[in-house]
């Protein structure tokens, strides 16, 4: 087995482990931290079903962002929806036989990469062009966008220009999944693509990418507006009642 294969196999095991463990810890941490007060941004749904609907609109349509700024919404939505299709398309490297619906999504996913990169370039351009956004941007904000753009661009290069050996690639990933490491195809573009994906997985749980799980725990969005009807008390706050 080549050194490159060992490095990439190790990299993906570590990246996956840290991604899963890191996210699991964060989700555990968010869920154990109490929300002592009812703070939904109103008008808010009065029932749990309503909350699910509100959250769905937020996650699928970026409703609040739509209200806020149409440019960020367009670029942000193109990027995220493109990314979703691209990710679904990538499932074919991890399933055997490939799930039927992945085959349906697959051709769309191919072109979704364009949506994704266009969205990302738009978001990056805003960081340079809008003085307010420039002011709040940290180096990591730029680098994160660049990282994902390079991942997307390298992927597109392999899809549209210089095809890589996807059969061998699938063998490599299926091998990783069944702990039977197979050689990674030694295509430089692919190796760049994979290395950057692993890097993204590594930084996910310690970066602003935590917005993905975070949105579901946001009390202004996930609480029902029913404080007069139901008494809502956190454990640490309930102890105060006992003193009276």
């Amino acid at each position, binding site marked *: 087995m080549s050194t490159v294969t060992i490095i990439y196999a190790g990299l993906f095991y570590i990246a996956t482990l840290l991604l899963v463990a890191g996210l699991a810890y964060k989700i555990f941490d968010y869920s154990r931290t109490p929300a002592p007060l009812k703070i939904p941004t*109103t008008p808010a749904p009065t029932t749990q079903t309503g909350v699910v609907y509100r959250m769905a609109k937020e996650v699928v349509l970026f409703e609040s962002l739509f209200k*806020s700024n149409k440019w960020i919404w367009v670029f942000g939505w193109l990027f995220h929806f493109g990314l979703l299709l691209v990710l679904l398309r990538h499932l074919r490297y991890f399933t055997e036989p490939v799930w039927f619906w992945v085959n349906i999504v697959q051709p769309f996913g191919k072109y979704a990469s364009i949506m994704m990169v266009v969205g990302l370039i738009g978001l990056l351009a805003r960081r340079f062009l809008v*003085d307010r956004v420039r002011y709040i941007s940290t180096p990591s904000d730029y680098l994160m966008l660049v990282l994902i753009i390079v991942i997307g661009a390298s992927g597109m290069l392999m899809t549209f220009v210089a095809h890589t050996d996807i059969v061998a690639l699938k063998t490599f990933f299926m091998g990783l999944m069944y702990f039977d490491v197979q050689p990674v195809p030694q295509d430089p573009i692919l190796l760049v693509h994979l290395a950057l994906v692993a890097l993204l997985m590594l930084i996910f749980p310690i970066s602003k990418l935590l917005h993905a799980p975070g949105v579901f725990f946001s009390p202004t969005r996930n609480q029902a507006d029913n404080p007069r009807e139901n008494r809502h008390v*956190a454990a640490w706050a309930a102890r105060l009642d006992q003193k009276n």
Partner: protein
Amino acid sequence: MAAAEFDIPEIKDYIEVPKLREGVMAHAKTFLAPKPVQDFMGYPHELADNWKESALEKMGDLLGKYRSLKVFLDACVHCGACTDKCHYYLGTSDPKNMPVARQDLMRQVYRRYFTTAGKLFPKLVGAKDLTKEVLDDWYNYYHQCSECRRCSVFCPYGIDTAEITMAGREILNHVGMGQKYSNEILGKVQKIGNNLGLPGPALLDTLEGLEEDIEADTGVAVKLPIDVKGAEVLLVTPSADFFSEPHVESLIGYAKVFHAAGISWTLSTHASEAGNFGLFNGNYETMRKVAMRIRDAALELGVKRIVVGECGHAWRVAYSFWNTLTGIGYGADDPFSIELQKQLDPNYPQPQHICELTNDLIQSGRIKVDPSLNDDLIVTYHDSCNVARASRMGTEPGGQFTIPRELIKSVVNNFHNMADDTIYESTFCCGGGGGLLTDDLMEVRVKGALPRVTALNNVVKEHKVNFMATICAICKAQFTKVLPKYGFDMSMVGGVHQLVSKAIKLD
């Protein structure tokens, strides 16, 4: 007044997003609370040698107690959606008044001390050590936020800067940098019973005077009862309603409504204040202590209903938090809450807003009004931030917008809304909320009022609006002080019940 001179912004045709000008509001520093005030609150009054450790320890404590803080500090992606949403940014153009930048003042410290990335690569992720300069920035800019939540409407993750500001103020208090205005008031409300420090005898004298005025004016003996055991309704209203113009006019309005409907009611000397500045400070226990006065008064007087007067942040605390803090509400199964809840009349929401009460009475015909008595007025309505984005009225989401408007329209004939993106959930704060209603922040207040004044100016030009109704004591005080700076008459602002008061039939 030795207050610094500053330019009054020019009103444009529409609300402009300014180019940013760094540091232009860095000088705006509200007075620090002196020793006696901090002593009473149990806070130090100056920085100790270990202030930094103490601040970080408090921050860790809050991160463990408030999911909002933890999630909001993690989730922001710096997308910029909020950058043009804060009235203080729009009015001052200081970039640290952009919600995300205000949050980042704390987020940079959070990243440095509480996250892996910030511990390893501080420069890369914009993490910063907690220095005295950073702490001073906290003090200045966490007192240029009115906790109005407008940014939270537009954030894709619902990040509410108010939560960060509250945590910031809590940490500042903890290390000895309290704000004089808010903390002095929190002392008075706990020692005397209201924010103004109006002692019982003065309150009685004031109410008697008002009864004389109403009778002289209408010929009807409308009463303003206080500390009456066994009354049906306990009315809790901001103490400014006893003291200031135009606030008093709404108090007279409530009294007339109760009189006309034949509902027995009472005020309470012990709970002669609806406002709860514990909200602004972000300290749960302080907010709870202040709210407990209402519970105590309700139990003491044996009332069946609790109604809240025109006060924006008080309605947030009452509607959203009273049940949690004091058991005023429904649905509890603990002895602490049941003691009170079994006393309350289940036919009414608890607590109930005075607009809900009056509107029900008018719509059901139990009180009669003549809107033509307000024909000299062309009215618009300013949605107060805490009512709009942190509470509800009625049974449907959005009742906090429709009920006050329905009520206004039943007592006036001429009504026009301001521009859509400045009302309802997008309403602009008056500029004086959240503990900023103090003379030492006048520049912040005047400039922060610019977006609202711009929208008002447009309906004045287009529809000849001459009265802006609102249901918040802070809004009323802020506008009476600030509107004249923009060339408007101070008497063009007043309460919704000031309009009710003029239109109601009293026989």
